[in-house]
Structure formats: C-alpha cells, structure tokens
C-alpha cells in the first residue's frame, strides 16, 4: 500500500515534470495567476489522495482509462472536482458519492455489491463451488465404478495368485506366438 502510493506519487511527479518541460508557458501561468486553480495540489499528501482516487474512477469519454490517466477535457474537469472537494475537507467516500450520483456506478472501476450485480460478484464463486461439486461427484462415482469392477470369481483369484507366484502355465492369449 505504502509502496503503491509511492509509485503513483513518483509517477505523478514525473508526469508533472514532463508537462512542465513540454509546456513551460503552462507552468508560468500557474505561477503568474494566484487566482487560477493549480493543476497539482500544493500538499503532496492531498495530491497523492487525488491520484489514488482518480485511478479508481472511470473516464466516461475514453471508457477504458481512469480519470487519472485520461487527458480528455472531462477527465481533467473531474480530476479538478476531486482535488477541489478533497481540499475542502470532504472524505473520499463523499467525493465518490458525488460522482456516482451524476454518472452512475459506471464511473467506478470496482462495481458495488448489490442486487443487480449479484451475478457479477457471485458468478465466479458459483462457478468454483459448482465445479468443485461436480468434480467431487465424478470422483465418487468413479470410485464406486472401480469398486464394482472388482468382481473376480474365486477361480480367477486363484489363477491370479498362481500367476503372481510364477508357477502357472501361460494361457493361450499370453503365448509368445501371439505376442509377436
């Protein structure tokens, strides 16, 4: 967890450095305009929280990216909302609720557990339990079949014993001629 946040933080810093290098004008603007909202929060802990939360939220424009990864205008706006609301002291849960109220559960990468997602969450468990049950049933049935196959007569048992002892005459099917 600690490492995770660290990686994300360093990634964010690297990105910020890259952006600052690519768009020096943008960096100057933030410095020149105290009124404008900065793109990165001054408090590193807050920025880490913003990035952590942003990675869990889907960008609705480019649906396979989180709002942390996407540069779509809406993702930038939503990131700004997350930053602003966390800075104003709202909890992460409240910020998530704010976005879910507007964009629905789809905005969450991890869908909540409720009646409509029962199959989604329960499906793998059902498959596992069902598969294990089926396997157990098959194994037990096969064990029963094997037990039922052990139906040798007394004469066959005696002959098997003699064969194992090595003093029985080979039967016709085991004659060397037919084996070749």
């Amino acid at each position, binding site marked *: 967890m600690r490492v995770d946040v660290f990686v994300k933080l360093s990634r964010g810093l690297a990105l910020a450095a890259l952006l600052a290098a690519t768009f020096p004008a*943008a960096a100057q*603007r933030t410095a*020149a*305009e105290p009124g*404008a909202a900065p793109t990165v929060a001054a408090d590193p802990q807050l920025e880490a929280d913003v990035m952590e939360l942003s990675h869990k939220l889907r960008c*609705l*424009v480019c*649906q396979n990216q989180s709002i942390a990864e996407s540069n779509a*205008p*809406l993702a930038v*706006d*939503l990131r700004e*909302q997350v930053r602003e609301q966390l800075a104003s002291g709202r909890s992460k849960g409240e910020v998530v609720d704010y976005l*879910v*109220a*507007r*964009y*629905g*559960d*789809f905005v969450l990468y991890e869908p909540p557990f409720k009646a409509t997602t029962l199959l989604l969450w329960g499906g793998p468990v059902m498959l596992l339990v069902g598969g294990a049950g089926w396997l157990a049933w098959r194994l037990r049935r096969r064990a029963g079949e094997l037990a039922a196959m052990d139906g040798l007569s007394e004469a066959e048992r005696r002959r098997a014993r003699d064969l194992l002892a090595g003093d029985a005459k080979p039967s016709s099917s085991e004659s060397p001629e037919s084996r070749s």
Partner: protein
Amino acid sequence: MKAKFLVPLILFIALAGFLAFGLTLNPREVPSPLIDKPAPGFSLARLDDPARPFALEEMKGQVWLLNVWASWCVACRQEHPLLVRMAQQKIVPVVGLNYKEVRGDGAINARGMALETETALAIERARRWLSDHGDPYVLSVLDIDGRVGIDFGVYGVPETFLIDGEGRIRYKHIGPITPESLQQVILPKIEEVRRAG
C-alpha cells in the same frame, strides 16, 4: 447419455448468443442515474442578456427539453435543423445549455484566459453560431466552466434532457437527436410525461 457430445456445442451456442447480444448494445450510452430525480438546480447567465440569470425554477409547470450544445460541437450541427423545425412547430420549449463554449474548443487555448474575456468570447461565438444556423431555443444559458454540465452528468455534447413540470429529469438522450429517435422515443416520452403531469 447419447446426447452428451452435444453439451459443448450447446454451451458454445449459448456463449455465442450472449456475445451476439452484447454486440447490439452501445457501450457509449451510459444510463443516467438522474432519471426520475429532480434536475440539479442552477442559475446561469442568459445568452441573450448575460446580466440576467436564468434559474431552473423558471420552467416550473412546463414540460421542456434542456439541450446541451456548443458551437465547436460537430454532432450538434447534425441535430440542429431538427431542433429548428421542432421550434417552428412549437412542439416543446427547448432551453439551450451552452457547454464550455470557449474552453471546450480544442482549437483555442483558454488556459489563463480571464473569465470576463472568456465569457465575452463565448457570447460572441455562441450568438454568431445561432444566427448562422438558426436559434431553436426559447433561451440559452452559458455554462462557461462546465460545472452545471457535470451536475447533469454530461459527458459529451450533444445531450438532451426531458424535464417535467415538477423539475424532474424524465429522460436523457445521448448524442444527436435523429428523426427516428425523435419520432420513436422523444415525442412519445413527451406525450407520456404531459399526460402524467
């Protein structure tokens, strides 16, 4: 026992059926959680008279459409003639929500632009666009920073919301309105809401 060899085939057909159904769905259309909920309140400057704010409550008692548009939005041009025709036939009042007129335009670098400059530019651009393409709106309001858009769960332009007399969102249309969607979905919905209200 004999039909056992059919089991994989049946499983395959069932899977193919699910996948084929999945292909008919549009992942770009995210159902809005705001349906049947009160529309988020807002008060924004009117395009025709920026000194005058327009609030949601002013439409109380009417069934109306809130159409999200912008002059940089290409798909809006596609649905615009239809909106103009609807306005001529006085089917339903349509309020325009001009969404991020300046900063939404990828061709303009609005970063660092003062809000007054941005607003003035937005008004100029939006008015010019409406005079070029026709103005189907009873009025338009300016959502300069897109904040009201976020409150409405807008994630692309155009989007159209059907709002009833009590200010509840009853339907959301994502993407440009087409003659088919108008005839088959939107007009029947308007009728339904009117009858209920």
